[in-house]
């Protein structure tokens, strides 16, 4: 309806992902920034951006199980690790003289399989959530991270072992190598740009699928399980099924994210999938906004780019950072800030970045009136 953008005459338009024109414009601006950014920033920042895009996929996954279905999971790092090593084993190139599992298969096989194997692990773990909730579930999933760390350190055929590591999956899609410099449509792209765009496409597709999921029958069932599990059951939602589904879908996202996560740095460290990684993802969800797909993406960028920002700020300080922070490293400051940020967001902005966005939006909606 021209001239009446707020008027819907079909239910399909009213329940669209982006019902209003303004939202479409904002999405367009966001995508444009993401497409242009890799041509502007330097290589180090580009690596961070690529990591952020991949992290967004993982954050969406965690938000599905924790934000939407309400099952607190501290085990996300484990599923990321499962995805990373599954992809490396299936898609890695066999090397002479090394006894690593590497089947050398194409990305269109290794990437979905990495997700599926992680999802399978999620299904195995999910029954715990049928018995436990809240803190108790968090503690059990926390145990998963330690279990994973132990396996990753000691299964040397898969991971290369502690201090050795291995290369992640080779990014070869139908023979096209994303992990080398190349050119697409006549535009020369360096390795990092190629990986970035691959990740961006995966992220956009996965975000769209997640958005569809949460506005559907399944997404409503997740939210029902989170808000009132007894009422959900009386309305016909099978608790067992939906808790298992939530873990499976979430782990699938983690698996895909894990498969791509370290491809840009080109090195998989068995120690990487630790508790701190899990907490970083929880931070993405909490700071971005629980039960929001856009929030997950914002949170992933925020948390991934945070260390860079902190470092720049410290370097920009007029005092000598080396003498000031002799006993604390930048990494430690980062961790402290994570904690502080989570607490601050939980107290002042429980809806996260998404909540801040809503507030800004509502302010301008009412402008120039105050109320």
């Amino acid at each position, binding site marked *: 309806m021209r001239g009446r953008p707020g008027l819907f005459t079909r239910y399909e338009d009213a329940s669209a992902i982006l019902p209003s024109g303004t939202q479409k414009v904002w999405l367009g601006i966001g995508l444009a920034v993401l497409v242009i950014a890799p041509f502007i920033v330097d290589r180090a920042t580009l690596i961070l951006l690529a990591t952020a895009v991949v992290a967004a996929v993982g954050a969406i996954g965690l938000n599905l199980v924790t934000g939407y279905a309400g099952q607190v999971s501290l085990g996300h790092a484990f599923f990321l690790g499962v995805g990373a090593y599954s992809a490396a084993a299936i898609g890695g190139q066999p090397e002479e003289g090394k006894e690593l599992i590497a089947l050398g298969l194409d990305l269109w096989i290794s990437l979905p399989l990495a997700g599926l194997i992680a999802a399978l692990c999620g299904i195995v773990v999910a029954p715990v959530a049928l018995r436990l909730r809240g803190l108790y579930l968090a503690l059990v999933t926390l145990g998963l991270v330690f279990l994973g760390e132990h396996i990753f350190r000691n299964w040397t055929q898969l991971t290369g072992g502690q201090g050795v590591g291995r290369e992640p999956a080779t990014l070869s899609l139908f023979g096209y190598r994303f992990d080398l410099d190349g050119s697409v449509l006549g535009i020369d792209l360096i390795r990092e740009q190629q990986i970035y765009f691959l990740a961006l496409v995966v992220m956009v597709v996965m975000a769209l699928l997640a958005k569809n*999921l949460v506005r559907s029958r399944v997404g409503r069932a997740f939210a029902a399980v989170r808000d009132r599990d007894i009422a959900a059951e*009386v309305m016909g939602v099978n608790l067992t099924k939906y808790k298992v589904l939530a873990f499976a879908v979430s782990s699938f996202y983690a698996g895909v994210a894990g498969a791509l996560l370290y491809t840009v740095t080109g090195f998989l460290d068995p120690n990487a999938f630790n508790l701190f990684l899990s907490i970083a993802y929880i931070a993405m969800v909490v700071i971005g906004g629980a039960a929001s797909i856009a929030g997950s993406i914002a949170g992933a960028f925020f948390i991934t780019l945070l260390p860079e920002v902190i470092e720049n700020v410290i370097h920009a300080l007029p005092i000598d950072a080396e003498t000031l922070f002799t006993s604390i490293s930048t990494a430690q400051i980062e961790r402290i800030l994570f904690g502080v940020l989570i607490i601050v967001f939980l107290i002042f902005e429980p809806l996260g970045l998404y909540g801040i966005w809503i507030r800004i939006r509502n302010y301008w909606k009412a402008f120039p009136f105050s109320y």
Partner: protein
Amino acid sequence: MDVVRDRLLSEVLPEAGTSVEGPVLEVKDIHLSFAGVKAIDGVSFQVSNHELFAIIGPNGAGKTSIFNSISGVYEPQEGSIRFMGKDILGGKPDHIARMGMARTFQNIELFANLTVLDNIMLGRHLRMNHGVLSSMVWLGKARKAEMHAREVAEGIIQFLELEPFRKSYVAMLPYGVQKRVELGRALAMSPSLLLLDEPAAGMNTEETEDMARFIMDIKRELGIGMILVEHDMRVVMDLADTVLAIDFGKPIALGTPDVIQRNPDVIRAYLGQDHAVVETGGTE
């Protein structure tokens, strides 16, 4: 202003109701106890189509326990519950819901972080069957089912006069409106039997009037069996076809509202023995 609806409830919810012969629900001699406390002690009754069956009794008499037993939240130790001709004792709540039973709760049990629309759409959960993958792709069957669910939900929103609150989060809404949303969510299931646990509790006169009107409309337009637990005796006596009075988990009277109102045991249970004696003394 008179609100005119486009569609009758039976057009919005054509699947509601049942074709089963005989009573929709048959409860026979159920006993439920929690570690020595007898919550239900030998209650039997049956509800048929088009019947509004009310259960009354003082606080703690076991009314909500009966509801929880019927809908599968509790499992009585003895007795039998047959719904639509099938034994449902020990069945899981979602399984019983699938057979066509819907309920509302005494203390509102809405999904607080969902909108009114989503709460009612959730009531359509069992009437759709697309899974994770087709939901994610949002094409064909899933899209069609979602749009149909939306249409049904809008019909219910119109019936319950919830239009202004469609997109509001239920946690923000007034109590009376939340009660209506809960009724809408239960209706969306297109049930054959509807359990209403104190639908008018905590409501003011106008809201109670509205709720009574909705219940009467549901009965007239859908013709489904309903069980009502309610403390507002005027509502019960006006609406119910049959009333069961219980006290301490035991049935004390069963009959039409007129009969129940005059039953001395019911008066005693509600007013207490002493008061009853004083009252008798006063009328002499």
